[in-house]
């Protein structure tokens, strides 16, 4: 390894360490004014009263502060619950805004400094490590040592990475009050972009986008000489940076609804939620355009593009989840399960999620147009269940946290309802397939090994069959790693696209073969 790369790893680790210790910095002093400023009108008086014992006390850590908060808050709520006074219980969670406002720390005072020392160093280090990669080598397949690597083959480094990611997601989704320092750190950036203070989601979006960019650079190095991989990577980097990160923030700056123009229902599962519809309908022409744009993508965009190009147009060129999987997740692609059993589970689970998402949305819409007469608040319960189980646990904790254990497409393969929808179109009505080059397959297994979706590509290739699978995201890596030029992603005639009795060219002894 070159010196610059070693320094890069060092800087990355320092950045990561600074980021990791940040929650432990500073102290927390709550005042009544802060409580009044950060609670809803109906709760202001009560909350100010509940938290009175905390005023003026300085808590030296988020743990002591939040435990005091929870103690006071729960005491109040539990008493009401015990008396079954459900309408007086405060269901809102104010721990995050109160922790945020009561914090005084060096991070809050010097956000840019800490931004530079954590995220900045990590990005710099990542680039220093990635850019010089393979510099003195000819372009070609760069999979040397993957299964000898502790990071990429479920060794201790992979385990630690996975555990860290899982912990990060759990804190982000359910305990954001513990990371208010990091939120303060990105607040100036948020002010520049949207004119609003940052939330934990802005923090997440920032890290997410930078991860795609830094690891996208790695892809450029790894797949040097492979135009398909390079363009596809540039595309996901662009869509994440512009469409998912910058444009929604700028929309907010312009007093428009926050909207990601490339996120499509049912991946974007709250698109038809009542508050979303209300936002669209109350935001004039722009809001209406967003609503219509979103619906057009669902009913025309997805089937049309998928007919012509396969689901890859979205999954490995546009999508944010796909973008992260194809960049940050690329080192783990070989860990996907290729067994027939996994494929069976995959089909059951992903289509169940699709059915659930469709049912939930149908109920929501029906309920909305009936003026909540139909189901009342039941849809809210459904939303919180889906948001928790699918949106957070499956897509986030498992989807990304499990990269080092089960490969980089766990969510896309087993969970994403949009992938299921795209997949149905791809399987039954599309011009896309992976063509097998006659009889040239040598059954080596590189294609299957490096398929992130766990498709046993070789099964098809060695019998001279085209690969038509609903799950294929068209990343093109099977084609890249094939040593004999056997696989090519193609859009072509739908005639004979699916052929269960292929002929392997080259043996004239027999004509039919399978």
């Amino acid at each position, binding site marked *: 390894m070159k010196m610059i790369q070693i320094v890069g790893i060092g800087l990355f680790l320092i950045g990561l360490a600074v980021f990791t210790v940040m929650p432990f910095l500073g102290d927390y002093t709550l005042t009544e004014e802060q409580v009044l400023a950060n609670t809803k009108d109906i709760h202001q008086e009560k909350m100010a009263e509940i938290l009175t014992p905390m005023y003026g006390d300085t808590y030296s850590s988020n743990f002591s502060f939040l435990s005091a908060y929870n103690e006071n808050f729960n005491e109040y709520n539990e008493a009401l619950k015990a008396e079954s006074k459900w309408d007086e219980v405060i269901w809102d969670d104010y721990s995050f805004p109160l922790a945020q406002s009561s914090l005084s720390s060096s991070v809050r005072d010097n956000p840019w400094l800490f931004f530079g020392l954590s995220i900045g160093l990590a990005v710099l280090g990542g680039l220093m490590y990635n850019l010089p990669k393979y510099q003195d080598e000819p372009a070609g397949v760069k999979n040397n*040592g993957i299964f000898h690597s502790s990071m990429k083959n479920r060794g201790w480094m992979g385990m630690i990475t996975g555990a860290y990611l899982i912990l990060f997601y759990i804190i982000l989704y359910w305990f954001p009050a513990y990371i208010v320092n990091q939120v303060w750190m990105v607040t100036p950036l948020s002010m520049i972009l949207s004119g609003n203070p940052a939330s934990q989601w802005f923090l997440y979006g920032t890290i997410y986008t930078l991860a795609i960019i830094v690891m996208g650079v790695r892809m450029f190095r790894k797949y040097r000489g492979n*135009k398909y991989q390079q*363009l596809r990577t540039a595309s996901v980097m662009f869509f994440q940076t512009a469409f998912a990160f910058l444009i929604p923030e700028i929309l907010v700056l312009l007093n428009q609804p926050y909207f990601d123009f490339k996120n499509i229902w049912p991946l974007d599962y709250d698109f038809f939620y009542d508050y979303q519809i209300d936002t669209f309908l109350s935001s004039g022409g722009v809001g209406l355009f967003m609503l219509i744009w979103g619906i057009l993508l669902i009913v025309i965009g997805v089937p049309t593009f998928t007919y012509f190009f396969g689901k890859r147009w979205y999954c490995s060129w546009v999508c944010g989840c796909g973008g992260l999987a194809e960049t940050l997740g690329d080192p783990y692609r070989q860990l996907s399960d290729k067994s027939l059993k996994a494929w069976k589970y995959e089909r059951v689970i992903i289509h169940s999620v699709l059915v659930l998402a469709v049912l939930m949305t149908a109920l929501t819409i029906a309920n909305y147009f009936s003026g909540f007469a139909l189901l009342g608040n039941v849809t809210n319960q459904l939303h919180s269940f889906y948001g928790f189980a699918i949106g957070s646990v499956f897509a986030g904790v498992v989807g990304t946290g499990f990269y080092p254990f089960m490969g980089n497409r766990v969510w896309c393969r087993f969970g994403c309802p949009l992938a299921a929808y795209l997949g149905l179109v791809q399987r039954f009505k599309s011009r896309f397939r992976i063509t097998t080059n006659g009889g040239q397959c*040598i059954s080596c297994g590189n294609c299957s*090994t490096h398929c992130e979706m766990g498709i046993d590509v070789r099964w098809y290739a060695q019998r001279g069959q085209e690969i038509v699978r609903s799950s294929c995201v068209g990343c093109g890596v099977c084609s890249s*790693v094939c040593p*004999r030029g056997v696989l090519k992603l193609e859009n072509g005639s739908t005639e004979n696209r699916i052929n269960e009795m292929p002929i392997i060219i080259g043996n*004239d002894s*027999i004509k039919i073969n399978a």
Partner: protein
Amino acid sequence: MSSNRHVVIIGNGIAGITCARQLRKLDESLRITVISGESKYFFSRTALMYVFMGHMKFEHTQPYENWFWEKNRIELKEAWVKSIDFTAKTLLFKSGENLSYDELVIATGSKPNKFGWPGEDLQGVQGLYSKQDLELMEKNTQSGVERAVIVGGGLIGIEMAEMLAYKKIPVTFLVREAGFWNNILPKEESELVSRHMREHHIDLRLKEELDEIISDPNARVKAIRTKSGEEIQCQFVGLTAGVTPNIDFLRNTELEVNRGVKVDFGFQTNIPNVYSIGDCAEFHEAPAADRKQVEQVWYTGRMHGETLGYILAGKEVTYQPGIWFNSAKFLDIEYQTYGTVPAQWDSENVKSFYWEHAGGKVAFRMLMDKQNKIIGVNNFGFRLRHEFFDQAIKEKWDGAKVISQLDKANFDPEFFAPYYIEIQKAFKDQFGGNVKVSKKSFIQKLFGASV
């Protein structure tokens, strides 16, 4: 034929396994047993190098999951055959067990050539063919190898060089001929590969032969001496001067053998109900003018197995290979060939068109007969469609027609450089004629595709 016969296949390589699978597809009831001492489950021999280099784990080289065999009632017997009693139709295993058969298929593959070099059995000296060879190579290169020498310039040799490069072991490569693999590749292609090997820091020595492998006091290799007298210090020697049929246990029996087991085009040996396929079979005469009596290629093994499966299922077929094709990968450069492109040809009767990219890593050759009909192609560094050339060669297309449709023959991934346009231009310059040069597509223009 009676349907409860017992077909026993010795060898679970691509030939034996393809035969077993085809037979099972065509016949539900007969009993099939596949014997191998090398590994219980079928694996792809061609992928052993990727296991060494950490691209894959050994289990990834197995094209079928372990339940596949039981589900398809293909019995797997892990054992080495010691001898065969052809009269009693019984196999005797090294373990002392017996197994009787009704029909026997010998598909025992190859073993690395050794030419009686002094020191060829020393520790640290080996070929690369089997799973055990791979394990031995992992052991032999674990530590203390400062330099390796590879003897013999073929495909396994260059694979071994790539494997050693993964371990950062410098390689000296001795090739007896004046060019790498030049009994197969024409001069320009051979030079292209040689250049690429040197780009990978392989010390390629052409026209250099092994004289002696020198031992240290522990019967380990410490150096080699070449015929020109140079002594090269090395701790590992790869012997990759081709392979030979693995049939020693069948010599001096009533089975007729020469280099391999002698068979006709129905894979029938001189003993009834005994067949042989794959690397270890030797046809009485070559199956076609451009083919050999012993065919030692993955694809031919597969075709032998496929055909014999049909024969054993009672179908009236004989081995009729179609248009020749083959492929390989030399470090980073892929190679495909379709039809007949020998290393040398008679320029009176054969016309050659050769194009090479300025970068020296992409090349295309097409041979045509006197009437400009295509005979075969070689392509390096880009991919061509098998189906296209199978048809063009079978139907004896005019060279100009082939070149005009080269865009359709292109099998490179989308957005790759359109080499076919340059090839079309070059062909038009050299041969004139009615050649259509493809236009760049809109997408190619949009992304500034250039060659």
